[in-house]
């Protein structure tokens, strides 16, 4: 199985890649989630010598939605929900980083404990 994302294995590279004690036969496969619903997500093109990985290229897929492009036509506040979706595991830290960046850019001083709205 070959793909355009790894360069074809040339003879010279082949020699370099053979693992010590390997089986002298390289196999290039795409490693990653193999399910019809997960097309376009992160995967890795790996070159195997037997069971050893001798070369690996990460392929990002198309999960990146280019939020910076979307932000060009949105207000600063409207971009905030997009930062949630950068990484579902740590939405808050992405919100925080974005808020700090906007505050720094605009020169805003925000009190550290917004306890009352009086």
């Amino acid at each position, binding site marked *: 199985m070959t793909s355009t*994302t790894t360069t074809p294995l040339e003879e010279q590279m082949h020699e370099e890649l053979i693992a010590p004690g390997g089986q002298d036969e390289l196999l290039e496969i795409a490693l990653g989630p193999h399910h019809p619903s997960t097309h376009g997500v992160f995967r890795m093109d790996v070159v195997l010598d037997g069971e050893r990985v001798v070369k690996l290229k990460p392929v990002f897929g*198309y999960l990146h939605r280019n939020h910076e492009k979307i932000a060009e036509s949105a207000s600063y506040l409207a971009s905030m929900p997009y930062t949630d979706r950068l990484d579902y595991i740590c939405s808050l830290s992405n919100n925080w980083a974005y808020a700090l960046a906007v505050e720094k*850019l*605009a*020169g805003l001083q925000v009190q550290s404990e917004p306890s009352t709205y009086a």
Partner: protein
Amino acid sequence: MLEEIKLRLETSVPGCHPEIILNGSPSEQHSLLLDSAHAVDAATFLRDDAELRLDYCSNVTGVDWLQTETSHGYLEAVYHLYSMEKKHGPVVVRLRTENRTDRIHLPSLTPVWRSAEFQEREVFDLYGIIFDGHPDLRRILMWDEFEDHPMRKDYVEPDDYEYEPTAHDDVLTKAKQHAPQQQPE
């Protein structure tokens, strides 16, 4: 601090004349503009100098400056550098192309900071800056067959990214705007 770095670069890297670019916004994040010819030497100095030790390139991004009355326009690659060892930073370094059309080559700093590899690919993909000396300069976010650079300021997005035989709704509205003569009466 930038003044000091500028002086040290001038004395340590022969021929290097960095320029301090002032940032007038409230963030006051000023930066150092390096010329392409000495960029790799200067970057190596910034990384290896005993006092600076800027051993971590945290972020690489691009900026597209359109043509104005005073400038013919250019592209910039911006590097944010920190020192893990000395715990200081960021130092912002810029590289600038000669124009936006045909002289868009910059030296790659990936040989100096390995972490720049994917982000220089991103800048290449989205802004179209060609990094000479990059080990693997391919598109990273857009698909291989894509032809334009989406983060350029003059980028015009297509009516629709997916082919559909009969345009309708928003796509049809966009299509009418730029090709009214092709639409049936």
